[in-house]
């Protein structure tokens, strides 16, 4: 494929999200706004009952910013559509129509996914602008924007690997549930890593979902070299693992695929 083809796939992905305006409104307003107000209420209550130095890591304002960032990242790094698309292709036999076209299924999904993510990147930019205008650290903002962008590629790998499970499953629901729970719990959407018990810290720090959800948010709040190095190493290791796993699983799945009947 060539660059115009990639761009066209991105455009198609963008249009397909734009067409489904009800989903867009649900995602951007309800699914982001409601959890934020819940967190807002909880943390205001928690901070009112405790002196600031009793709570580790973050002030109340920083906690609010953390939740705004992770909720926006949670919507951005959402592979729901990708998993449903692959599942539909597999179960309804649409994969056959794509396999006879001169395109790579992995690349096809990557560029459609990038297109689908464009509108969800706007809240990230709005948060970045808000932090800049409220006198935040420019390095943190730039790191947040860059990490969010680079992590889209990793998020795609993770989602694509999960979506391949639909070659073996009759419905994608289990995979979708798994993805949502993992991103919410070990990704750090529900609770910042610092608030988890010590014995769970290794899991919370080194799981792949942290890279796409809480990692950029932590950098926005406390930009430092150690965090960049930690996230960079995690990115390289998990990227390599996911890449190999995707290649292996896809090859195995294609050999197993017998089409959806005649």
């Amino acid at each position: 494929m060539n660059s115009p083809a990639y761009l066209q796939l991105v455009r198609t992905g963008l249009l397909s999200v734009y067409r489904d305006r009800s989903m867009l409104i649900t995602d951007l307003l309800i699914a982001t706004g409601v959890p934020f107000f819940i967190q807002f209420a909880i943390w205001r209550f928690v901070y009112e009952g405790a002196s600031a130095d009793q709570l580790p890591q973050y002030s109340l304002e920083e906690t609010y910013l953390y939740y705004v960032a992770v909720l926006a990242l949670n919507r951005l790094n959402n592979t729901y559509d990708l998993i449903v698309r692959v599942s539909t292709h597999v179960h309804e036999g649409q994969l056959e129509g794509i396999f006879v076209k001169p395109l790579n299924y992995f690349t096809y999904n990557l560029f459609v996914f990038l297109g689908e993510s464009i509108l969800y990147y706007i809240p990230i930019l709005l948060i970045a602008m808000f932090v800049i205008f409220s006198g935040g650290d420019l390095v943190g903002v730039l790191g947040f924007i860059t990490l969010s962008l680079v992590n889209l590629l990793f998020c795609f790998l993770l989602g694509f690997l999960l979506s391949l499970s639909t070659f073996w499953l009759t419905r994608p629901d289990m995979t979708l549930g798994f993805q949502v729970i993992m991103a919410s719990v070990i990704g750090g959407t529900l609770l910042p890593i610092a608030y988890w018990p010590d014995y769970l810290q290794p899991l919370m720090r080194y799981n792949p979902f942290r890279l796409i959800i809480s990692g950029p948010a932590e950098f926005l709040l406390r930009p430092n070299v150690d965090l960049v190095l930690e996230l960079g190493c995690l990115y390289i290791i998990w990227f390599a693992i996911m890449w190999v796993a995707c290649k292996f699983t896809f090859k195995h799945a294609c050999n197993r695929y017998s089409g959806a009947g005649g």
Partner: protein
Amino acid sequence: MSNLIDLTAVNKCYFLARETVGLAAWCKQLVKPSYEPYQALADVNFTVPKGAAVGFIGPNGAGKSSLIKILCGIQKPTSGTVRVLGHNPSLREKGFLHRIGAVFGHKTSLWWDLPVKTSLDTYKEIYKIKDVDYRKRLSELTDSLNLSKVIHKPVRNLSLGERVKCELTLNLLHSPELIFLDEPTVGLDVTSKYEIRKYLNYKRKESNLSVFLTSHDLGDIESCCDDAIIIDKGRIRFDGSMRDLSIIFKANIKLNVSLQDLTLGEARLLRFKEAMKVFGNISLINDGPTNLTYLVPKVLVGEIFDMFNDGTYDLEVLPMDFENNVVNLFKSWSSE
């Protein structure tokens, strides 16, 4: 003459997970799954020359779609050699995929919620079609298939016929040398079928497009194909020209039997059926309350007329149509 498709000793075997009964068997299947083999294609050999239009006929589950998927590169054969346009399809080389088109009548490769034009524009870039060629071919296809009012509508709003014609448009835009059509007219009205057949015949004449067509509507095969391959239970039962096939079919006629006096009732028809049992190689096509229809070899017609010349029955000899002949073939094979 170079061959477009070359198949040698192709076999395809699927392994299906065994169905279980009871909890213990289910647990055992979960831990250590066992599979049952299903032979979809057995020792398939045939060649298709360049520019040919081949109709691929067979009953449900005969192996038609499996073979089309192997020819397109979607599936690999269990054994045997497959060459299509000089390529091994299972490698899915881009050069090969640029030279073929494939329409699966009941599966879509268009974006469901987006206008047809968006899908066409996307595949224009994927196939690297030049702007001039794209405009020319799109205009020709939309005019011929009556799609000009359709291509700006979302795919989900199209009728089945419109969607299949859009699929055909998508798969012909890059001007392939060979197009695979897997039941393209299933569920379509007569007008849509006519438009598709007419356009395929036009493309064959105009750009020497080769066609490999499977259909349960034998009108498609009769209208578009010069050659036919008949498959049953994964085995090729006939491979030749439509002319050869019609010569075989012309050996039979259709014999319509009815009572001259309808008041005589069904008992007389039953008596006729009993009497016909002496002939081994005839088959009953239609068993109605007031009439019977048989497929009869031409050589037996005189003998039958001699048997029933007492004026009780009206015997009408009609030429066998293509569809009835094929049905009879399938019936005779299924009893083997």
